[in-house]
């Protein structure tokens, strides 16, 4: 399926503007002390939004064959599971060792 029927130069420019704005917000909240308590979840959400926008619009996954979504999404999900599992295993082991 051709993605050109769906995405135009205007769309690409709007996505770029949104990506830049989100990056500015990320850097901005990094320096504002009031956001320190929610900094990590906020940054992760903003990063996920940027990631999704690039994959959906610049990599054309939104308009392309669904099979590509499966080819990319499957390993991506597995990678996320690996990251989270390793963190749980490692910090669980540290807690057991230190009793904290």
């Amino acid at each position, binding site marked *: 399926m051709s993605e*050109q029927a769906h*995405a135009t*130069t205007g769309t*690409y*420019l709007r*996505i*770029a503007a949104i*990506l*830049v704005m989100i*990056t500015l917000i*990320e*850097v901005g909240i*990094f*320096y504002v002390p009031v956001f320190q308590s929610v*900094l*990590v979840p906020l*940054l*992760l959400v*903003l*990063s996920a939004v*940027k*990631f999704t926008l*690039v*994959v959906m*619009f*610049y*990599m*054309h996954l939104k308009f*392309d*064959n669904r*099979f*590509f979504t499966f*080819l*990319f999404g*499957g*390993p*991506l999900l*597995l*990678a*996320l599971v*690996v*990251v989270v599992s*390793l*963190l749980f295993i*490692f910090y669980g082991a540290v807690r057991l060792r230190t009793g904290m």
Partner: protein
Amino acid sequence: MAYNTDTHAVAVAHGHATFMGVDNRKMAFWAFIGSECLLFGSLIATYLVYKGRSLVGPYPHEILNIPFTSFSTFDLLMSSLAMVLALAAVQRGDMKKGKLWLLVTALLGLVFLGGQFWEFSHFVHEGLGLTTNLFGSTFYVLTGTHGAHVTVGVIWLLTLWIQALRGKLGPQNAVTVEITGLYWHFVDVVWIVIFTVVYLIQ
């Protein structure tokens, strides 16, 4: 034999449709990108597992330069924009703009690499080497692997640009440019994650 060199050339230029009706090269490349997710996932997991466990400095908060890296992030995001504009131009047969945007993408990639070289040199000067502490080891391996991918991407883009200059790249090769774009955008999304996980979440 019916499958002569002309048939082969046509097959190379247009690819083969799989039984699912998708281009075999794009399918293979998406599978490759999937495997790359696991590679970078492992490296990011390693970085996170050893985060805050360095026994000696320099520590991340002492050495990481957020304004500078924000500029590098902006640079890479703009290179992604240049890449989609290059693909759109090649697809509609506007090779003048196609060549321009391919070159702009490669140059923005070179700017990013220059920034990374400066950053690494600065860190080494500050006393952070590959074996200094856990932060140094995991940081250099993660960002260095990403930098190696950017380097491959820049070489790939310049190769395409030279092909375009020689008149060997046109709308008939749009899938080649699209696959290059997939690689380049993937490098960009990996940086989006690295920027957040390594630089902003300290």
